């Protein structure tokens, strides 16, 4: 059990996918204007990332590895992610209209989120087993949601702050992201 806790802490804080590994920066900058949408995006990403890392593990272990086709990982994982996202979207739309209204617009965006592919590829590189892969994906998603929510809360405050004119808008957002990244470097060496 301690092993899984270490994986979670490592993916959420130490090797945070956004601020330390710089994956998934597009939604990090794009969907962080409002706290509400950031929470929606975080929820959708958590859902998809966990599911996608499970499916990618299964495809890699039971389909690619027996045939010695590991070199096709990237393209196979892209296929897996796209299908998982699309299927999840249809399933949610039918079974839970409320959840669909919250997550719906974000689901197609996640298809092109490179953190999802990054997690799947790192799982195979680090030779994680099934449960480790699941936790790794889940932790990465939690870390992504955490910084997305933190960053959007900061940006909501920044919107009403007295920012000097040359720094307004995207410029101050970039600087904030950089400072957050510096802050997260402080977790280095924790695990």
């Amino acid at each position, binding site marked *: 059990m301690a092993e899984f806790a270490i994986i979670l802490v490592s993916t959420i804080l130490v090797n945070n996918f956004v601020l330390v590994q710089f994956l998934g920066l597009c939604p990090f900058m794009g969907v962080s204007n409002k706290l509400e949408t950031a929470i929606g995006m975080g929820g959708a990403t958590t859902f998809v990332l966990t599911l996608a890392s499970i499916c990618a593990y299964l495809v890699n272990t039971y389909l690619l590895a027996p045939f010695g*086709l590991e070199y096709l990982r990237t393209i196979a994982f892209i296929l897996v992610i796209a*299908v998982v996202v699309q299927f999840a979207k249809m399933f949610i739309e039918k079974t839970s209209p409320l959840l669909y209204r919250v997550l719906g617009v974000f689901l197609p965006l996640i298809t092109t989120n490179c953190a999802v592919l990054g997690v799947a590829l790192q799982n195979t590189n680090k030779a994680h087993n099934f449960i480790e892969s699941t936790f790794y994906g889940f932790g990465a998603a939690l870390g992504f949601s955490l910084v997305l929510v933190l960053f959007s809360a900061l940006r909501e405050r920044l919107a009403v702050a007295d920012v000097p004119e040359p720094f307004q808008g995207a410029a101050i957002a970039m600087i904030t992201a950089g400072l957050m990244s510096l802050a997260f470097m402080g977790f280095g060496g924790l695990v």
Partner: protein
Amino acid sequence: MTELLNSDFSPLIIALFVLGGLALVFGAILGFAAVKYKVEGDPIVEQLDSLLPQTQCGQCGHPGCRPYAEGIANGEEINKCPPGGQETINAIAGLLGVDAPELDAEHGTEAELPTVAYIREDECIGCTKCIQACPMDAILGAAKQMHTVIVDECTGCDLCVEPCPVDCIDMIEVGTTLRSWKWQLPEPLEKISHMNESIIATDAPKAGGQAS
């Protein structure tokens, strides 16, 4: 599987089959899901909703634009939307294939130009009645404090004018500014051909074909 591995197939062919098979299975899953999890939507409501002005002003008697769109889909009159005005009525009539009625005056009159509410602040007594009436949360203020209107949020729906006990709210027209200015599009082709009919003297044959 072991047979396949030991056979003389070139790795390329195996790769093709594996990836192709994967794609085929996924395609089948998605196709199945599309049929199994099909969501019944009412496209006419969506279309009507997109024609309405989305001011959510409630002057039609519904709590917002989408409920009114559902009402229209169930056979309600289409002339209850003052913010949209005649233009919206015509668009809805075109969509539903019915004659366009005049705007129903019972629900309010069409503003000639887009307006926003303006509170004469030295007369405001801070009763918060207009704040409660505003469907857009565009009025800022607290009890016994002077109120003011957030111009960007105000849709000009008039609803705050009525409840004000001291009549200190004016509807003022929004002039064209650099932010709201739009390029004037040329007249649609139908209107131009319609205009041609009122020409008095021409040697061109009439649209009916007979040369006069």
